[in-house]
């Protein structure tokens, strides 16, 4: 049961972490209770895109930028059909939105979608805590959900962990749909939706690609039924170690040497299909300022990230896999985490970060061109 905070801007709320630390603030968005993995995101712009990114499913997102909601909510910037975060933690929410595209306030939208949030807490202290202790389970409680803290803590500790969670089916489309090419159609791509963001098919469509977005449960036959020039595996939530279905599906695509591109979860699936392991990062990469080096050119791009898991592949050598030689193509310069993989003997590559960049910088948009080149190469 959730209710609006409008007119009652100072309803107390509390955020409780699984290790017992708690922060007291005010309810923001819907009043009630919510649970999820507490993670922090460092982007200073793009809360609308962040909140609607399916990869944030079952996560309580902490915005490190203190002033949130300034530009309200518009009808154009959603990355999916709804807000996916399970909770939102901000310091200073806007009282009045200001933007020529804004249709309503962020607060209104959170209430309308029943998203429980908390405001007015020391988000920097919380962020430092998560950085030092790692992302962890948390709950936000306001209104009638507030109870003695020991009880709230027990409720938090009763929640499932992110590690081992299989969530992509929960967020992916149930029905296939087509995003038509912008202008002349040049290619057909089958995109396996593991939690795809709206901007991704849009970036492909801009390049003359007709994108057939397929459910996460699609089969190889369903993929090839659209006669794709290339296959795409999207981003998505949860632990990639649980994604045996998508791994098998991708392996089938790799067998047929169809040009393949993966983003985020798609990168982890490729890693697994190639025989690499995946692991959970202590506190993940979530932000739009991460330096990634393209090891093929040496150039650095500033990129949008949202991943709590990463591929465990050797940085310093070419690996032999069952699909031929593979190498780490991109690496995060902050911490040397694998940010991209490519096969050297067949047309397949993936990146851990978000070249579709919504929100975020457009530095990595060239990767969609690279995908186009692979498909062109296959035709030639």
């Amino acid at each position, binding site marked *: 049961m959730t209710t609006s905070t409008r007119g009652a801007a100072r309803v107390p709320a509390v955020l409780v972490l699984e290790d017992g630390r708690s*922060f007291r603030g005010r309810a923001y968005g819907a009043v009630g209770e919510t649970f999820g993995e507490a993670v*922090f995101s*460092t*982007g*200073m*712009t*793009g809360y*609308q*895109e962040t909140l609607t990114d399916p990869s944030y499913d079952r996560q309580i997102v902490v915005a*490190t*930028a*203190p*002033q949130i909601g*300034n*530009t309200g909510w*518009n009808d*154009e*910037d959603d990355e999916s059909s709804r807000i996916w975060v399970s909770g939102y933690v901000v*310091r*200073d929410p*806007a*009282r*009045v*939105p*200001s*933007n*020529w*595209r804004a249709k309503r306030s962020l607060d209104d939208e959170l209430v309308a979608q029943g998203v429980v949030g908390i405001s007015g*807490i*020391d*988000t*920097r*202290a919380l*962020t*430092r805590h998560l*950085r030092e202790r790692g992302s962890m389970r948390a709950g936000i409680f306001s209104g009638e959900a507030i109870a003695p803290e020991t009880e709230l803590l027990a409720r938090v500790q009763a929640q499932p962990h992110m590690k081992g969670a299989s969530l992509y089916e929960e967020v992916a489309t149930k029905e296939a749909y087509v995003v038509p090419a912008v202008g002349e159609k040049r290619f057909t791509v089958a995109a396996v939706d593991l939690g795809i963001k709206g901007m991704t098919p849009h970036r492909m469509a801009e390049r003359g690609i007709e994108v057939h977005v397929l459910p996460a449960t699609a089969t190889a036959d369903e993929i090839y039924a659209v006669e794709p020039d290339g296959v795409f595996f999207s981003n998505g939530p949860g632990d990639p170690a649980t994604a045996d279905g998508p791994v098998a599906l991708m392996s089938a695509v790799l067998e047929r040497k169809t040009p393949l591109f993966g983003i985020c979860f798609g990168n982890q699936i490729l890693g697994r299909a190639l025989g690499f392991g995946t692991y959970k990062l202590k506190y993940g990469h979530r*932000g*739009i*300022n*991460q*330096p990634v*080096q393209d090891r093929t050119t*040496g*150039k*650095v791009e*500033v990129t949008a990230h949202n991943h709590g898991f990463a591929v465990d592949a050797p940085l310093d050598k070419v690996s032999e896999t069952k699909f031929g030689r593979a190498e780490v193509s991109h690496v995060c*310069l*902050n*911490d040397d985490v694998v940010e991209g993989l490519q096969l050297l003997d067949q047309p397949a590559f993936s990146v851990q970060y978000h070249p579709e*960049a*919504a*929100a*975020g*910088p*457009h530095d990595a948009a060239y990767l969609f061109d690279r995908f186009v080149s692979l498909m062109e190469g296959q035709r030639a």
Partner: protein
Amino acid sequence: MPKRSDIQSVLVIGSGPIVIGQAAEFDYSGTQACRVLKAEGLRVVLVNSNPATIMTDPEIADATYVEPITPEFVEKIIAKERPDALLPTLGGQTALNTAISLHENGVLEKYNVELIGAKPEAIHKGEDRDLFKDVVEEVRRKTGHGESARSVICHTMDDVLKGVDTLGGYPVVVRPSFTMGGAGSGFAHDEEELRRIAGQGLTLSPTTEVLLEESILGWKEYELELMRDKHDNVVVVCSIENFDPMGVHTGDSITVAPAMTLTDREYQVLRDVGIAIIREVGVDTGGCNIQFAVNPEDGRVIVIEMNPRVSRSSALASKATGFPIAKIAAKLAVGYTLDEIPNDITRETPASFEPTLDYVVVKAPRFAFEKFPQADSTLTTTMKSVGEAMAIGRNFTEAFQKALRSLEKKGSQFTFVGGTGDKETLLREAVRPTDGRINTVMQAIRAGATPEEIFEYTKIDPWFVDQLFLIKETADELAEAPELTAGLLAEAKRHGFSDQQIGEIRGLREDVVREVRHALGIRPVYKTVDTCAAEFAARTPYFYSSYDEESEVAPREKPAVIILGSGPNRIGQGIEFDYSCVHASFALSDAGYETVMVNCNPETVSTDYDTSDRLYFEPLTLEDVLEIVHAEQQAGPLAGVIVQLGGQTPLGLSQALKDNGVPVVGTSPEAIHAAEDRGAFGQVLAEAGLPAPKHGTATTFAGAKAIADEIGYPVLVRPSYVLGGRGMEIVYDETRLASYIAESTEISPSRPVLVDRFLDDAIEIDVDALYDGEELYLGGVMEHIEEAGIHSGDSACALPPITLGGFDIKRLRASTEAIAKGVGVRGLINIQFAMAGDILYVLEANPRASRTVPFTSKATAVPLAKAAARISLGATIAELRAEGLLPKNGDGGELPLDAPISVKEAVMPWSRFRDIQGRGVDTVLGPEMRSTGEVMGIDSVFGTAYAKSQAGAYGPLPTKGRAFISVANRDKRSMIFPARELVAHGFELLATSGTAEVLKRNGINATVVRKQSEGTGPNGERTIVQLIHDGEVDLIVNTPYGTGGRLDGYDIRTAAVARSVPCLTTVQALAAAVQGIDALNHGDVGVRSLQEHAEHLTAARD
């Protein structure tokens, strides 16, 4: 890719004197760059005429030339030093323009010097309006976004008038090309305004070029700071949003980082356009700043301009983010790439990322219109502010209110008590952007204006308007609450309310509010500026306060010294004080202390996180300082707080700090009082048997008249309790005394007027000295060029003194020692003397570092501020001599005979200001200080040193041509010999009839020219003002009798400013200039580095 191996030495050009639009930020960036280059093993050659900078400290570069930044002098330096490369992007527009001149006149090619950082082509593309329009067009083609405002390039007034039609009529914006700080630009609403603004713009532009542009008044304004390396990696370091919409120069706007009212899509458009521009312009390595206007109706993006160099905004961005743009730019210039450079703050991550902020930064400008009462205070696209304060908070309201109180100016903070006035009147007033408009807006809100009305009248973004309402509503809650509860206080503090503001609202004293607050346990915590929103651990203790939960101040073992800085630059308190604070930090760090800097000025070296062990970027109010002291006392042992180096700001806190139990070290608050209080100081003088000019105080005209009658005219009058000579005037007769008293609003029974005998024709002398309680070290004796009565900050001066003998120095030393001892100084003292009729009068004493400390230190090669800091903490002069910080023997009063002569010249901001009719403001010097900065000329003889000081300040003295002379009667006698010298040097003299007559009687030929008041002659003979405007006069000597627009001299002097003709307003300056001209005409003027001068001086001392 490592650094280039083909560059062994680099010439860095600084930005010269502090002027409006080009201030201390270039000392910050230049210092960083020189340090980086030196650390890379390069030989760094530096030229900068500004002695009050850290960058011109001899240890910062290998060869430091305090010489004029003109192509001629820089060529001499190049010929002598033969650097491999020239880095022109760190010294503002001055450095960029000089480098372009040296490129164009072939000097760089001749000496095989490579321009690094920005190529001439890139500089042209970025700065030339036409070329830049093409750049923007190309960017639009590539990215689909960004366009230029519709505009026309003009080279003549005819072009300008036609241009208006092309653009579809008024209003239009006028922007001269290649000027700094937007000098000469403005809005023209009709032809008259257009002719005036464009006329001056054509003159100011080195390429005689102005741009006329469609008006985009009221749009949202943004800036991006970008960096690019040679591998074409580009990062956006910071976005800045202007609180004041388009129409106000960004230097005069309240600005906010990061941008507050853009969605990601809109922000990414700006980023894409910005990156495309830096690539298209071709800034290969280094930083650039790009300004955008965004239409609030539909998001249409107009690219306003770009600076292919480090700028004021990049200094602000560096402080706002912790990403040191200048330092990185220097590394990129010598070949590194962004990913090879570690982020200083995290140490583990590279610089090839974009800083993300978890706080809000607000910068507020500080103006000095009170110094220029004639000037039009409307803010336009010409920058008029003289300084700025920056504040950091965890939200906008906190940062904003901190920034306003950092301005440290009466009325800069919001006030919520008292009447508001009429809403309509306030709203109409708020239309015109001025210093303090924000307070008018707040009053309008208090008077009942709606958010919609505020937006309608001011075009301030509705989100910002709502923040003002949030502040106002919080004030209402404070006012209405039955008692100050913990919750209410905490809430007010989170929105930046000071104890003083809360006290005012609640009718309580500030200290009572503080007691209540502390009793309730409400104190600020200190957060770290870490570039990454806490994603990685920060290694650099760069703090700001916030009323939040968790503090990040770490415990420490070593005793700490807190150094209070000087706050925003203003006239009378500028970079010189920052210099002293930085020196204290260095010296105390060397002596084993942990140094803690407190300051709120983003332009400075003191607020570089590298300067001190800890940096608190905080306002310098009692409340903010007490909280820092508390936090540091919790963290470890505190040896003391230094208040005597940051100028009047920290000095003013001294007593209150002591009363609150804070250990103030150095000169005690009581001693400060003894020097500052007229009565107490009079007693010190009386006890020492030293004469001061006769004086008295009065509260009425009758009283003032009685005093003046007794001591005789002229008298120096001023309100009590003012600084920087504010409101001070020399009054020659009773009529003016009456009008002065009538006009002065500062005078009341509790604030009497001070009437002093004015010492006409006296030589003014400044002394900087150190005193440890036992021994006096005379730092230096400066003899002013201009007579007493002209504010010491505006007067040129020479060190060693050029006409004082050993006996005079002896007297000065004895008097200085008696005062230092009588007052009880422990550290620095500055005393102003006037020598009249062989009597040495004491004018005033300041028990603190003075404006002249850096000049004195450089001229005598002795670090006075470092010594003062050590003395404050107990070291003796004898110990410092033994240590080598001070010379073993002797002091600055007894320099060897062949010591170089250093001349300091003040730089005035006349060209920045206009009155409301659009006429220039008068340039006459007086007892009220109005200069913004200074230069130093150093050479073996006075004439050459003076000529260099003039070249550095205003452009070279003419060595031939036409000199116009018109002097007041009292100056006619002393004008004859210098006039004769001018003729001997081949000058043709022009004079008005009265002066010409005197000259002729003395056998000097002068052509009579018409006064402005006489108008054009019957045969079209031009007046002197017309001749000046037509560029036919090379030197002007015009000494005033009284000031004001009615007098002929006013038109002459303002024309001189408009046409950049050297204009001397005292006969003493004329005499000095003649010596300079003589030096220039006799043989080659050489250049010599400070290190060479010092070596010479040290050798002579031993």
